[in-house]
């Protein structure tokens, strides 16, 4: 249930190189073969390593990227041909260093590992003395996706932040560690009114905060209201609650039109929470298991309160740092060094502490995929949550048993600007505003080539917008798939036979820090030229600039992605409402809005699914976006890790996770 913004930056890939395997194979056994393999492996992320180059130059291929390619090529040549000379030179170099190093250094890594174990054991024992029998003897260590951005529930939007929040906080519902469906946590009893608009939750009386205070219904009311008073990216999820959006706007303007008490969340007593919705929300429990809906401990946040000149209250995000932070999850945050690490220890106040199996969890920061992988291989960490795509492809081909892959709740697609006139085509009617052109573009792409040659992790080719397998009851028409004949016909019908007269200037925009997208853009350009006879440009720019261009609809074609936030088709279909902030396509017929609105107020599940199917069919056939493939998630963990499971939304339930000896 989260966005995966870093997806883009993490998608590193080596060039599509068929010679890759053929060079590697005969040499793989030898040390030299491993060495050259490593050189290439380490060289390949050069482009990412020097993101700076891209951001400064803001062009598709930075100078540094070119340089890296050259080095990569030449290292390959050395690996292939240099033979004796290269080996001797390398050996001499190594020998020189060997001679120069004191003898005890050769045992260095062992000493380091022993040291790490000792410290781990020490930490373990200090915790074990206070805890009941835990199955894990030492803290579970992992490398998250990048560093933590924020642990303030209001502003949170990155996967790595949510991941840690699942360990230290808990809501009315949590996730089942096997099925990842929402199951009750702080709620012991849930009842729904007949019109499905009023939900009443009875709270677990023994639930406590990490400082010993009981968790009360008022903590939810406080937290949810604050979500609207200082809204972040996920405030929109609260708009299902009565008067929530109105209160957010009223509070911003400080006009007093809507009061805090008017919002549909109340606490009649300490253990009862009543939630009133504007429409039936069948996926409410799923939302309640998502961090923005977690409670907060108001008293501990009080010292961080500040009031602005308009009288609006906000809390400085410092409240999320130890020792000030008060949590209610299986673990408590005990140390947080920005950019370095995060330490969590078992929460002795947690109501279900008997089922928390690890004495602690430690998050290590390493933003470099190669370095992170080496740390994992040297067993400095138990779990590598985010694997560099080039490494993942290699391990995937080797069938490594510790690589875990699962289909993701997300789709890679391109968004088309459907406005009649766009800035890239001054004085010309935008051909993309014609549905026949959009259909032709979709039918001219051989998607199997994308997953086989570019992404290479067993991704599924997209036949629809919504990823398959999650909502069997939503039965929509598929998109027009690969068919060159029909593509040509559609294009001719739109007035561009064999691409003649197709205006120049259509550009595929993407973020240049993502090599997969760089390849994808080139591939699409080639496909359209070969199959339709039309020429488009490709343009890779720096990530923030790219986001800016897309959200301000200043593009013609852009490579984008969408991950669902909650387990309901509406998390995908709502994006293309004409009123949605996230609709970048300039497409938004009234009929579509109408379908979504009817689905939202429909209490009958079958009818609702039928309406959403119709809505998705509209997207699949009118193609404001052209779906390409569905993502997969992957992670690495060692065989002695228990309780982890790969899943579609990349969620982590830390309670059952521990390291077996």
């Amino acid at each position, binding site marked *: 249930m989260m*966005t995966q*913004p*870093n997806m883009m930056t993490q998608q590193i890939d080596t060039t599509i190189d068929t010679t890759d395997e053929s060079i590697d194979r005969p040499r793989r056994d030898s*040390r030299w073969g491993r*060495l050259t393999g*490593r*050189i290439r492996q*380490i*060289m390949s992320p*050069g482009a990412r*390593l*020097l*993101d*700076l180059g891209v*951001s400064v130059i803001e062009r598709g291929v930075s100078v540094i990227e070119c340089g890296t390619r050259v080095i990569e090529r030449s290292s390959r040549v050395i690996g292939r041909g240099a033979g004796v000379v290269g080996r001797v030179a390398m050996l001499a*170099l190594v020998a020189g*260093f060997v001679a120069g190093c004191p003898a005890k*250094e*050769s045992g*260095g*890594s062992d000493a380091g590992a022993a040291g790490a174990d000792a410290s781990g054991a020490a930490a373990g024992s200090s915790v074990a003395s206070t805890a009941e029998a835990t199955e894990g003897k030492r803290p579970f260590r992992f490398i998250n996706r990048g*560093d*933590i*951005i924020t642990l303030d529930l209001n*502003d949170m*939007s*990155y996967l790595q932040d949510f991941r840690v929040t699942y360990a230290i906080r808990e809501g009315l519902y949590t996730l089942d560690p096997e099925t990842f469906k929402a199951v009750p946590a702080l709620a012991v009893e849930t009842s729904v009114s007949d019109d499905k608009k009023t939900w009443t939750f009875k709270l677990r009386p023994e639930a406590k905060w990490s400082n010993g205070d009981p968790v009360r219904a008022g903590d939810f009311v406080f937290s949810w209201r604050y979500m609207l008073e*200082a*809204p*972040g*990216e996920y*405030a*929109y999820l609260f708009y299902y609650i009565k008067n929530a959006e109105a209160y957010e706007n009223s509070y*911003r303007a400080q006009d007093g039109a809507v009061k805090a008490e008017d919002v549909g969340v109340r606490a009649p007593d300490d253990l009862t929470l009543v939630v009133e919705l504007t429409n039936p929300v069948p996926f409410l429990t799923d939302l309640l298991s998502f961090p923005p809906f977690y409670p907060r401990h108001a008293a501990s946040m009080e010292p961080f309160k500040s009031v*602005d000149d308009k009288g*609006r209250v906000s809390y*400085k*995000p*410092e*409240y999320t740092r130890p020792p000030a932070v008060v949590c209610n999850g299986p673990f408590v945050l005990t140390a947080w*060094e*920005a*950019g370095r*690490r995060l330490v969590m220890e078992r929460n002795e106040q947690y109501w279900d502490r008997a089922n928390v199996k690890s004495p602690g969890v430690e998050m*290590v*920061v390493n*933003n470099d995929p190669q*370095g*992170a992988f*080496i*740390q994992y291989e*040297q067993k*400095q960490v138990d779990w590598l949550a985010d694997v560099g795509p080039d490494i993942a492809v290699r391990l995937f081909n080797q069938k490594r048993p510790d690589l875990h892959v699962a289909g993701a709740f997300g789709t890679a697609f391109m968004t088309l600007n459907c406005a009649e006139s766009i800035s890239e085509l001054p004085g010309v009617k935008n051909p993309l505003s014609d549905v026949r052109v959009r259909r032709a573009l979709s039918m001219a792409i051989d998607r199997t080539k994308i997953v086989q040659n570019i992404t290479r992790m067993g991704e599924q080719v997209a036949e629809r917008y919504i990823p398959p397998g999650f909502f069997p009851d939503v039965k929509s028409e598929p998109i027009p798939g690969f068919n060159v004949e029909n593509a040509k016909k559609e294009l001719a019908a739109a007035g561009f036979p064999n691409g003649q007269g197709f205006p120049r200037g259509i550009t595929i925009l993407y973020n240049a820090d993502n090599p997969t997208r760089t390849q994808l853009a080139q591939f699409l350009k080639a496909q359209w030229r070969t199959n339709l006879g039309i020429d488009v440009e490709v343009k890779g720019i720096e*990530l*923030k600039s790219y*986001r*800016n*261009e897309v*959200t301000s609809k200043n593009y013609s074609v852009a490579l984008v992605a969408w*991950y669902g936030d909650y387990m309901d088709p509406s998390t995908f279909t709502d994006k293309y409402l004409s009123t949605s902030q996230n609709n970048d396509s300039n497409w938004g017929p009234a009929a579509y809005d109408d379908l979504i609105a009817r689905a939202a107020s429909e209490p009958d599940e079958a009818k609702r699914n039928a309406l959403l199917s119709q809505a998705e069919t509209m997207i699949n056939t009118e193609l404001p976006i052209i779906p390409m493939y569905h993502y997969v998630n992957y992670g690495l963990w060692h065989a002695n890790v228990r309780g982890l499971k790969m899943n579609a939304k990349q969620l982590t339930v830390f309670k059952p996770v521990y390291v077996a000896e």
Partner: protein
Amino acid sequence: MKKVLLYRLLQFPLVLAVIYLLTFLLIWVAPGSPFASESRAMNPEALQQLAQRFNADSSWRFLTYYPVRIVTEFDFGPSMVKRGFSVKELIFSGLPISMTLGLAALGIAVVVGMLVGTLSAVKRDGILDYAGMTLTLFGISVPAFVTGAVLVLIFVAWLEWFPIGQWGSIKDIILPAIALSLAPMAYIVRLQRVSMLDVLGADYVRTARAKGLSKSRVVIKHCLRNAFLPVLSYLGPAAATTLTGSFVVEQVFSIQGGLGRHFVEAVTGRDQTMVLGLVLVYSTILLAMNLLVDVLYTVVDPRIDLEKKGA
């Protein structure tokens, strides 16, 4: 001397103010906001409200709030991206890491560089000279991410002598310090060699030799000090760059929390307060280093008079 020092020190605030304004201008006009995330669009009004919490909803508000705070409280404000941490805190937790690494690298570069440079000049056209010149060519032209990667590959991934991504013991510093020292070392070797050759040809050296002093004595006593000046002028900016962290080396060796990474992340994330804080700290170090070098000039060569030069 004291007058010049005072004069130079008084220039600092002015120079820093200009740097601050120019940097602010650049980061402010860069597309994208530190508050907008990379996946979900936010209601523009909510975005504005968030920016207001950071006193960054307008350039006027920013400029009337942050510079004042820097001057009065020596506080750069909160980081706009790493929410919950102040810029000051992030910089001063990263500075020791980058400085340790930088000092180690600089030490290696100066010691090895001076030694090889001097010997190459003394034994001109000898084996050491040719070997030194060839290797320095590599040092200058091969970027740190290549040498760093090769070091990681050999000593970490292959031989497994050193760990990666750790910080605290000498062992964690050796490899990155070597990688970081190569480029300045190569420059120092070449500068030292050239200026040593100059000095060796000077009349007073011939005189000293004619008096019957041994060659090594002449080199150490008479030449080193005079040949050191060009190296010294290079050391100022080189120290500033190595001490304030290298993104490339930090990345290759997975050193976490250093200034280099903070800098790059701040720029790509449009973390305005963080960028400005880092630029100010970096500029201050650069200015201080240049001043220090000027002062050291007079120590090394008493003929140089800052009063006259400064005036």
